[in-house]
């Protein structure tokens, strides 16, 4: 966990941060989706990421989870350089995510969806699994139990055998959260978790996120358009516009920031 002194001194983020984003840049051809963005996410906080459509929020998530390789800059997770690692390695280190346009394993049951994400926390291989060795069977039992417990946590325990694609949009988002939690992450990335939910579901979601963070000692990075939810949940907020970080701070301060009002809250302010 030790970090070279030089890096701590130079970097924009101290080693205590769970996630350190340092001058991160991502270019697609001539388009700069993320431009020299730097910030640090502190342990245990809910860190909001907001900005108009096309500001680069989801691209930033893709960079952090390894789905997109950055053109420049560094990513540090718990003091470790994770820039350029493939997604499954980053997942194994403890970063889990949900997707803006829900990517469940649609044909599989809710329970299987969650069980799959236990992959990196289990070890039985091809041979022990097929032979049904005692170790593999015990592991399978625990995997099933934990998956059921997570379905219970998100309120879907009554339909474990239902195919993922048969759930309502809101329930699919909750199932995705359960799947992400099965990975036992320390850092959870939620990409517009409230999209498509009605106001009752949104309130439930806020409670769920708070509950989960407290219970599992999580750090949460959250993209969300629904402003009341963001203001209510987040400890700090970063605002992106055209790929650039234009503001960073507690919700109240960000809300008053002139650049933010112009770029994002313009109409509502």
């Amino acid at each position, binding site marked *: 966990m030790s970090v070279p002194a030089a890096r701590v001194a130079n970097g924009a983020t101290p080693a205590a941060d769970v996630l350190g984003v340092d001058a991160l840049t991502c270019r697609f051809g001539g388009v700069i989706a993320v431009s020299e963005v730097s910030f640090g996410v502190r342990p245990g906080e809910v860190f909001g990421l907001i900005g108009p459509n096309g500001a680069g929020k989801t691209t930033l998530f893709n960079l952090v989870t390894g789905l997109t390789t950055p053109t420049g800059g560094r990513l540090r997770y718990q003091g470790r350089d994770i820039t350029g690692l493939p*997604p499954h390695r980053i997942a194994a280190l403890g970063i889990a995510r949900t997707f803006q346009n829900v990517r469940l394993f649609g044909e599989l049951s809710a329970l299987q969806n969650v069980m799959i994400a236990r992959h990196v926390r289990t070890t039985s291989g091809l041979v022990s699994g*097929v032979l049904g060795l005692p170790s593999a069977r015990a592991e399978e039992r625990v995997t099933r139990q934990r998956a059921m417990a997570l379905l219970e946590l998100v309120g879907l325990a009554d339909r474990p055998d239902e195919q993922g694609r048969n759930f309502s949009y809101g329930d699919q988002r909750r199932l995705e959260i359960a799947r*992400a939690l099965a990975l036992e992450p320390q850092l959870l990335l939620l990409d517009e978790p409230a999209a498509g939910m009605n106001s009752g579901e949104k309130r439930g979601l806020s409670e769920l996120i708070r509950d989960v963070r407290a219970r599992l000692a999580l750090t949460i990075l959250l993209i969300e358009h629904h402003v009341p939810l963001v203001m209510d949940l987040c400890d700090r907020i970063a605002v992106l516009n055209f790929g650039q970080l234009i503001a960073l701070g507690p919700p109240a301060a960000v809300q008053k920031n002139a650049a933010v009002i112009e770029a994002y809250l313009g109409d509502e302010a």
Partner: protein
Amino acid sequence: MPAFLAAYDFLLVSMVLAAVLALSLYVPLMAGQLSLASPGFYALGGYIAAITSTRIFPTASGLYPVSLVILEMVVAALASAVLGLLVGVPALRLRGIFLALATIAFVEILRVVSLNLDVTGGAIGIFGVPQPFASQIQYMWLGLPLLGLCMLFVARLERSRTGRALVALREDELAADAMGVNPTRYKVLAFTVSAMIAGVVGALSAHFINTWNSRQGTFDTGVSLMAFVLIGGSRTFVGPVVGGLVLTALPEALRGVADVSGLPAWLAQFLRDGRLIIFGVMIALGTVFFPHGLITPGVLQRRGRRRADRS
């Protein structure tokens, strides 16, 4: 019964071997990878058995030892695994139709190589592969246990951590990757298992059909195997097994129909020789009307429930 077994001995064993080959195609498909490489490994296994039994352990007279056949099957499995790894690592960077094309090319390369090597007997191939049994139906002693083992293997695989990783890749590779499943690793694993199964069947087949040449295990075989899986069902191991059994028997059944008097000559001819055309049409219609094949987990569950209701 003995008369039936004697009359259809070749067909019955062929059905069993086809079912195993269909499982070989099914395993990569679990991970969403349409690989048509199985005929290549089938050909490789056949050559290994044919060369071993005619050149290395030639038997002057009497039956060829069954233990040596089993040894050949094991060697074929290992050789196929090695070649599978070598081919799989680069080939599985390709997706969908490009992977299918690359595997077809692989099968074609093996065919041309075997056509031009001395050790494989060139265009003539290898004749007189020795027989371990006095009658063909006795190949069931090896064929049935092989089918049983492979079915058991795939059935248990489907319920294991590894099987879940494969299915996750089929459903959404990107999401599976983000959930910690290494796509390359599991695709190569599935491809290698598939290669081993095909190699073993090839080794047994070389004895069974007594001769081996470059016409065994070609693209045509690949089309048939694809028909077995896509029509039988690609969402549970039962699908390819039933597909392999039934569709191998189908041409014989059609031949029976063709012999019915009164049919126009062209129709009788088509029923006799149009196997690949019929399979092709079935694949085309099947993918439209039964995208997951005739036997799906849903069908099996409904049957199970009905049985439970009755008792």
